[in-house]
């Protein structure tokens, strides 16, 4: 099974803290199993680094099954690596060839400051959600399922938007570091449903305002975000966000 093992040169971004400069370091990693996931490969690298007395590479990860949105990484210039609709944890080493050089960078955006090495602070997304990405409900007993009838097709559209895992690949891949795809998904999933009507106008205005305050860029409709999104969120949500924003600004309640 020797053909299942590859040797790689890794160019990894190393940065001690948010204020330091940071630079690329090269590491040789031999005998990488092609059955490994990309994150497992980084685990092996870290073991090798620790054994040789060096500091391990910091990177974000959690569920390792593509649903939590914690892993990130710009791999050879592509958010979450070369595959479409895939997170870094779902990327396998069989996508790489023996002798390849793999460049690994953190997400780069003013709204996502580097914490350490490949870890960035995505708190900006949490603050955007806090600004309006919620619905108000009475506490107490859980309401009956299907108490509010919603057409299947409407549910599907809302669910497609709700598939966003908030990983930040849209910002990372966008040449303007714009967060429009993320915000549009979070606005859409609630704006379409009856439960989201109460805060519909206030929500979109607050979330857009927070997005601007966090220092994200402006959308130029290149659709690079859609191509990079592991959850395949469509840019039609961005058009919906624009409609919602216009509607709320021009005729929404104060």
């Amino acid at each position, binding site marked *: 099974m020797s053909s299942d093992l590859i040797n790689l040169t890794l160019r990894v971004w190393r940065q001690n803290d948010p204020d330091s400069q940071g630079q690329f370091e090269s590491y040789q990693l031999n005998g990488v199993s092609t059955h490994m996931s990309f994150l497992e490969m980084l685990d092996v690298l870290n073991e090798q680094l620790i054994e040789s007395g060096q500091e391990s590479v910091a990177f974000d990860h959690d569920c390792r099954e593509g649903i939590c949105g914690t892993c990130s990484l710009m791999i050879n210039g592509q958010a979450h690596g070369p595959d479409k609709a895939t997170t870094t944890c779902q990327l396998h080493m069989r996508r790489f060839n023996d002798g390849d050089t793999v460049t690994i960078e953190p997400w780069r955006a003013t709204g996502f400051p580097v914490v350490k090495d490949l870890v960035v602070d995505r708190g900006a997304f949490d603050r955007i959600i806090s600004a309006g990405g919620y619905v108000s409900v009475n506490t107490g007993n859980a309401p009956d399922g299907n108490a509010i009838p919603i057409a299947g097709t409407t549910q599907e559209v809302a669910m497609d938007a709700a598939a966003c895992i908030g990983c930040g690949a849209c910002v990372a891949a966008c040449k*303007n570091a714009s967060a429009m795809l993320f915000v549009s998904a979070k606005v859409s999933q609630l704006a379409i449903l009856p439960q989201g009507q109460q805060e519909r106008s206030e929500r979109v205005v607050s979330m857009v305002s927070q997005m601007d305050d966090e220092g994200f*860029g402006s*959308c130029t409709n290149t659709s690079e975000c859609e191509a990079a999104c592991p959850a395949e969120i469509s840019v039609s949500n961005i058009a919906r966000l624009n409609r919602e924003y216009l509607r709320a600004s021009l005729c929404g309640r104060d």
Partner: protein
Amino acid sequence: MDALCRICCIPAELLAKVPGLGPLIRMCCTSVGQKVLMALTGLALCGFLVTHLSGNLLLFAGEEAFNTYAEKLHSMGALLKAAEVGLLATFLAHLGLAVSTTAMSRRARSKQYAQKESKQGAFALPSGGASNWMLLTGLGIGAFLVLHLVDLKFKLRPDLDYATQDGAYATVNMVLPSPVSFVAYSVALILLGIHLSHGVRSALQSLGVSHSKWNKLIEIGSMLFAWAIALGFICVLGWVVLNS
């Protein structure tokens, strides 16, 4: 860039002080609001291009038809002046918004990637290439407009003898074949085609026009419109030069 951006914000800050305009200006100053304004001014300029091309196509109808049209247009007096001021304001607003949104995007990524690739196929989206060149193609068109106004509106080109030409038709037939104009006009019209091929589609998306049923039609229609405008002007230019 930031200094330029602050200058661009001055009209907005002044307008916000006018009673009643505050909420509108605040809405227009957000990233989404700026893109909406960008779209509206862009589409308004497209409307002007259609009118301008319609007028220019009269060059094919001969000297008499074109001169009659030109004289009628210029006889509109104050109405024409108002339209020209409106057009200039729309153009400056479009340019100012371009500077402002570009500055916003530059600030949004202070450190660039060492390596950056696209996940869209090279030809997956015909406007994908154009979308990366909006500012440069726009500035190129802006620079051309200065020449265009000097050439044919104010008639100030020192190397051309405007006095000997009688009527708009004769002036056009003198200016366009001059080497400087021919090259500059050709390049600018190609830039215009590239700019519009992304601009029209993008403007509609910024205004929220998107539906799975219509998106393909919008995409193809925008592309056809962009190149119909550009090729229309190129035909006029080619025809005039070949006939000179």
